[in-house]
């Protein structure tokens, strides 16, 4: 899966959690929680959605590495390269 494909998946999962998200206006470097006003339940739904879509289990200690859209893509691409722990 390419980084562009991962990005598309991340945006799709984000839109499941926050239906009002407009991908074309999303700053890929901005904090998702701040700009989209995600609370902890939304963020948990986001992480669960990523797991369902990509098979990546993000440990709690790594939540900070999913700060922005670009961060998510980089982290998830690396985790997928590593494969299952």
């Amino acid at each position, binding site marked *: 899966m390419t980084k562009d494909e991962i990005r598309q998946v991340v945006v799709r999962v984000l839109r*499941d*959690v*926050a*239906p*009002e998200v407009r991908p074309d206006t999303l700053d890929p470097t901005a904090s998702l929680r701040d700009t*989209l*006003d995600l*609370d*902890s*339940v*939304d963020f*948990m*739904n986001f*992480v*669960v959605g990523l*797991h369902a879509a990509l098979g990546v*289990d*993000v*440990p*709690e*200690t790594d939540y900070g590495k999913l700060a922005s859209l670009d961060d998510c893509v980089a982290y998830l691409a690396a985790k997928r390269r590593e494969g299952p722990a």
Partner: protein
Amino acid sequence: MPSLGADMEEGTLVEWRVRPGDRVARGDVVALVETEKGLIEVEIFASGVVESIVVEPGATVPVGAVLAIVRGEAEPPGREAAPATPPAAAPAAPSAPPPAPAAPPPPATVSAPGMPPPRARVSPLARRVAAALHVDLAAVQGTGEAGTITKADVERAAAQGAALPAAAAPTTAAAPDHLAGMRRVIAAAMARSKREIPHYYLATQIDMHRAVAWLAAENAQRPVTARLLPTVLLLRAVALAVRQVPEMNGFWVDGQFRPAAGVHVGVAISLRPGGLVAPAIHDVDRKSPEQLMRDLLDLVKRTRAGVLRSSEVSDATITVTNLGEQGVETVFGVIYPPQVALVGFGRLVERPWVADGTVAPRPVISASLSADHRASDGHRGGRFLAAIDQLLQRPEAL
């Protein structure tokens, strides 16, 4: 048309999920209605067979109007059949339902003589997106199952120019002014609360170090799908504390307190476009933290998508609001009538905490109670907050 709150007066039938002849069980979702609180999936309150549809999609009817006729399992077909929604005190619909059709209605692709043209099936999310993008659903080709219009269909139509100019946006049930409608609902409920309910307020600080440590240890071992948020422990603690102080759980109706049979906790969820809803999670006192977490994730997701179930909108027996993530220290909440109590949680912060003669940093949270003085007194309110505190000191037992 079920009453989904004390201030709801009418609703618009958006679509049926059943047809005459379908067998339904109590709790099944049978219809989708539009209210000022948004789209609500109506669950049926009795089991039986749908005998006839009374209200067609698109019609706006008052609370209490008969939407459909359901025949109980043991009842013969005919006039004795039960309405599909609970009767209201003053139904505005005709008291006698129209004669049941002799046969199920024709397939959706065929219009019966004299009937309105068939409506395409539209997913609730697609309906929301269409309203936001001012897309006329009549111009959208559905590609989902059985021609259902999906969110992707709406977005595609919008990209192809099917969006209406704002001034020409449909004013039917598909695109009401949700924000203004929700504001009216909140205004009515909160004004009634402040006008009628003599609130008293109590607050306490709760040491959360055991709860936080237990959660961290648990979550480190759990897959992402089984992890818990602190909110789950707070909800469980409130629900279990209710067992010790039951006068916090129920309704003030007709001049007296009526305790609720179950503990259905309304969870205040702020909507990003504006507004607030507090749908209920049922039987929180009987659910495991894992089940409660799943229910909470599902509830918030569906709330964001704009579709709740009728029982969730109407069944809350006590409300919990957590404004800690906004940095709020202490909440002084307004009770949602006819409930009699609201518990507020603030920010989880590290504070110097004196225990066993020493000062140590501890994660601390503020818990507050807004309670109806007609139903309880400050002494019992204090007992309730103390019970929540004690329960949170044993997170493994929640």
